[in-house]
Each structure stands twice: as C-alpha cells, then as structure tokens.
C-alpha cells in the first residue's frame, strides 16, 4: 500500500470478495441467521475460492496475499454476513497464526497446510467459564505422561467448535506458574475424550458456530505441543494481537453494510411528501456515520500494513478494534433509527447488523481490555 490507494492486486481481490459475498452469501444470509446454522455448502464454496489461507505463503498452499488484502475480505464478507466474517477470522487470524508463527516445519506441513487450503477448519480454545478477559485464569490442565499430554478441563465460547477439525487449545502444563505455566497444543476434534457442546444461543453472529468444548483425559501426542512448555500464554496473546485487525475489519464491514442499506432505503422511503434522503437530519446523520467508518477503515489498514511490515502492530490493532467496534455499534444503531419501525423488523438486514455489531466490542478482547493495552503503551 502506498498512501491510501489500494494496489491493483488488492483492488481486484476486493472485487472478488464483493462479488462472492453478493452472489453466494447475500441470498441466504438472513436464513442463516434465522436457522442459527452455518451451511456446509457455503464452507465448500469459500474453500473452492481459496478464502481460508489469504495471508499465507503460496509454498504452504496459501494465497500469498498480504494482511491488508485479508482485511478487505473480512470487510466485504462482513458487509453481507458477519457470521461468515468471524468463521473465517477465527480460522485465519487466530488458529492458523499459532501454528504458522510457532510450529516446526513438520507441524506446519502436517497441520497448517490442510487448514490453509480450507480442507480443514480451525478453532482457537482459550476462553473458559472462569477465564475471560483475565486469560491467565485458565484452569484446563495438560499433564505430561510419557509421549503424551493428558488434557482435562473445559473451554467456553469456542468459535467454529461445531465445524472445526483442528483446535489450538491452551492448557496448564505447570499449575504452579500461572500464565507462565500455560502451553499450546494442536488437537484434533476426532481425539477420544473431546465433547463439543451444542451451539450456544446468542444475540448476534448467530449462523457462526460457538460451543463449549470439554476435554476428559484426552491423550495428545507430545509432538503436538506448539513451541515450548510454558510458551502458551504468549502464543495466545500474540495471536489475539493480530486477530483484532480482522475483528476491526469485520466491524467496519458490518457498519458499511448497514450504511449501504440505509442509503438505499432513505432514497425510497417517502414521509411528509418527500424522500427522507432529502431531510438534512438524514443527510447529516449519514455523513457523520460514513466519516467514522472511513476513519475506522484507515485505522484497520494502518494496523494491517504495520503487521505486513512485521512492526509493532499490536497497539495499532487494539486501537483499530476499539474504534471500529464502537463505531459499528453506533452506526448500526443509527441505521436502524433511519429505517424507523422497518429497521426494527427482521424484514430488513439492519437489525441483524445491529445485533451482530455488539460482539465486536467483546470478543478477542473487550473494549476495556483494548484500553488497557493502548494505555499500557502510553508510559502513564
């Protein structure tokens, strides 16, 4: 990226993501939300279009595109359906990076390649019933037993759990050391002792899979340890640091999608004898909202470019996530208001956008956690 212009490659990728979202997802997005289920056929189509390995090298079967291109995918897909956004995001920017950045060549070949190709879907299991923002409170254990680690415990709110094949699971290998005793493991869904619960009923992103996962004496071969024993907390925090760029882009997409719907609506809706687009209240409201969304997008791009440069992107990612998610909530609420009663009805997609927006302030670090990260860099 030079200045604020997308490169030709990025522009053509954006066109692809846009067309894919419009043709393949828009017609079924509402139905997916109502049914609270992610269709297998759509996963297959995403795989066919090579969407699961966008920012990974072609040597590993990835697309060889940059992180900025990945944010374009997140935005374009989330404009139409935020559930698709999070499904792809957890796979691409939480699960895969743990293996890509910490795995051995053998682990990358064996576990990452099928994830990047989309043949397998990835999940990231860190959060527990008693360990949310304070991830150091993880209680799941991994006890070494010969060539195996024995996993016991339970994870909460694991996105993609219902559809994933490969889980990166965080567990304590040394309970006495707190977060420094946490390690990361590559776990297959098919391993004995894993129970994936039913989909947790949620307010938004309802088509995405999100379940509790229980581990009972799961024998994980020792060659599935990522990095070193005790390195898990850092692996998780690093992955989340990058993942937030994806969530920022998702939030921008949700907001822009809602604005686009509102623009269409206000040009058609007549009250007091004219289209409501002619009222200055409508115009100013949309102008304010679009300005914030543009600002959020630029922050997402800045963080993405910094990550592409292998710079210190984490604080920028936290800022873009904080701002974009709060913008998405404000904007979707504003769009529902512009639609009036129809906005509140499930006939129009803005109420779904408003419900979907809320989670972006919560997952992969709450807004409050983002403020902790950002203020932590300010030498206060």
């Amino acid at each position: 990226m030079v200045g604020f212009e997308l490169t030709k490659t990025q522009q053509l990728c954006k066109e692809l993501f846009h067309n894919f979202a419009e043709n393949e997802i828009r017609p079924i997005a509402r139905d997916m939300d109502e049914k609270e289920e992610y269709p297998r056929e759509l996963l297959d189509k995403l795989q066919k279009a090579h969407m699961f390995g966008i920012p990974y090298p072609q040597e590993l079967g990835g697309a060889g595109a940059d992180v900025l291109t990945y944010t374009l995918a997140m935005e374009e897909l989330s404009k139409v359906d935020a559930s698709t956004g999070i499904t792809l995001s957890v796979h691409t920017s939480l699960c895969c990076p743990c293996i890509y950045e910490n795995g051995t060549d053998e682990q990358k070949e064996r576990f990452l390649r099928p994830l990047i190709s989309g043949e397998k879907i990835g999940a990231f299991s860190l959060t527990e019933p008693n360990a949310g923002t304070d991830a150091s409170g993880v209680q799941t254990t991994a006890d070494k037993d010969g060539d195996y680690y024995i996993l016991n415990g339970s994870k909460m709110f694991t996105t993609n759990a219902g559809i994933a094949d490969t889980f990166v699971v965080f567990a304590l290998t040394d309970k006495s050391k707190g977060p420094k005793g946490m390690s990361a493991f590559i776990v297959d869904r098919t391993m004995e002792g894993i129970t994936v619960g039913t989909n947790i009923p949620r307010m938004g992103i309802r088509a995405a899979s999100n379940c509790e996962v229980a581990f009972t004496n799961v024998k994980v071969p020792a060659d599935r340890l990522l990095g070193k024993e005790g390195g898990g907390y850092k692996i998780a925090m690093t992955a989340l640091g990058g993942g937030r760029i994806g969530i920022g882009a998702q939030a921008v997409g949700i907001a822009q999608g809602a604005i686009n719907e509102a623009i269409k609506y206000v040009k058609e809706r007549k009250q007091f004898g004219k289209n409501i687009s002619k009222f200055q209240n409508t115009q100013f409201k949309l102008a304010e909202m679009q300005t914030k969304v543009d600002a959020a997008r630029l922050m997402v791009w800045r963080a993405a470019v910094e990550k592409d440069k292998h710079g210190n992107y984490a604080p920028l990612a936290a800022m873009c996530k904080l701002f974009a998610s709060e913008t998405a909530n404000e904007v979707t609420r504003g769009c529902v208001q512009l639609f009036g009663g129809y906005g509140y009805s499930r006939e129009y997609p803005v109420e779904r956008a408003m419900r979907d927006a809320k989670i972006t302030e919560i997952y992969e670090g709450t807004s409050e956690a983002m403020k902790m990260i950002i203020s932590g860099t300010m030498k206060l």
Partner: protein
Amino acid sequence: MKIVVCIKQVPDTTEVKLDPKTNTLIRDGVPSIINPDDKAGIEAALTLKEQLGGTVTVVCMGPPQADVALREALAMGCDDAILMSDRAFGGSDTYATAHVIAAGLKTLDYDLIITGRQAIDGDTAQVGPQIAEQLGIPQVSYAAEVKTAEDGAVVVKRQFEDRYQLLKVKTPCLITALSELAQPRYMTVSGIVNAYNKEVKVLTFEDVKNNLNPDFIGLKGSPTNVKQSFTKQVKGAGTVINVSADEAVKTIMDKLIEKHII
C-alpha cells in the same frame, strides 16, 4: 489442447444509467467487466483444459486499461494473456477488429478459438464469425455445449430459439459461446496475486503488421459508417377498448382502413 479465448472489456450495462436530459448513456464511473459471453468462453476453455491438459491463452484488443480484464482472466486460471493495443487499431468496426485480432492469432499456435457470441455494448455478434473467416477455419456459432471427440475434433451443441444442432467439427476451429455455455468460476486470491506477477504480452501494430492489411484496420479501414444515432421515441400508450370480440374486430378493421393500412 491449445485454446485461445478472445475477450472484450465492456461497461457493465447493469450499472449504466441514462442522462435524463440528453438521453445518452452516462459512462463515467461505470465499472468495466469482461463481456459475459466471453467469460463463459473462458470457463469452457478452462474446463476443457482440466479434462485434456493444454493451455488457455486469452487475447483482448483494447486500450491499455483493458489490462485488468486480462488479469482477471489470468486469475481465473488462464495461462497467458495478450493485449492487442495500438492507436492504429482505434475506431475499428467489427470487420477491422476481426482483421486485427486475426493478425494477432496468426502469431499463435491453436487448436480451438473461443469467442463470446456477442458483446453487451455493441450486440453485433459479428467479430467471432469474422475472425474465423479471416483465418479460414471452420466456425460454429451459438455454442451452448462443447465436448471433445476421440479423434481430436470437437462436438458442439449449437443452440437456436426452438431447436439445437449437434455439430462435429475438425480442429483448428472457432466457436462463439453463449453465456449458457458455462457458469464462470470465481477468480482465486492466489490467482490474482500471481496474475499481477505475470507479464501481459502487448502486441502493437508493429508486431503484427506483416499479418494484416493496414487499409483494413482502424477507423479508415472500417466499412461500417454510422449515419445517425438516436434515442428511440417512446410510443404513446395504446387505446384499450373493452367490448365483445365481434365488436373489437370491427373496431380494429375500421381503424386499419381509416389509416389506409389495409
């Protein structure tokens, strides 16, 4: 099989709006796309390549901006791309365009040439058949299905409004593709990344001048003269007469006689 697909970059007519004052097309800001019939041709070519092996080369005549259409074709899976671009080619009608493209195709080795049936901006359906004529190879227009036969020939289902023909044709040959021929695949992200790392070969007048007659290209080489272009007048609303059938027939006959039509 060596397949060449000829494509045209056209304005996306679904996005074109009319200027209400001048009644002319507003082309500013209208996105350019690969002509839909041509895109179906690309898909058909890629499918044949997957079945038989070989290569797919995509050729486009147009201004330098048409480069993006060729990149898109590469991102769908085509192997090579050629842009025929030169001021000398500008203003060509269908005959001159076919003459230029045929000159470019003479520099290539091919078994099968696929063009779209017609472009959504001009709607002539002439360039494909004219290329075949200029190259002196057999052609099958309006292809709705293409298969290969054991002897290297191709079998084409040629669609008409109310019937179809199955034609077996020896290669090299040219077919013009209906959009029904194939549902085009999406580009892939890796395809796009690689498309911009590849070279789009540019053929100018200099490169193909030995294969063409300079009197038959560009505006001056175009036999078509546009005499006038106008916007069709909107017809007035008709008169609806609600009467019995017999009375209606009489009314219509009287009107026709009155207007000296019969």
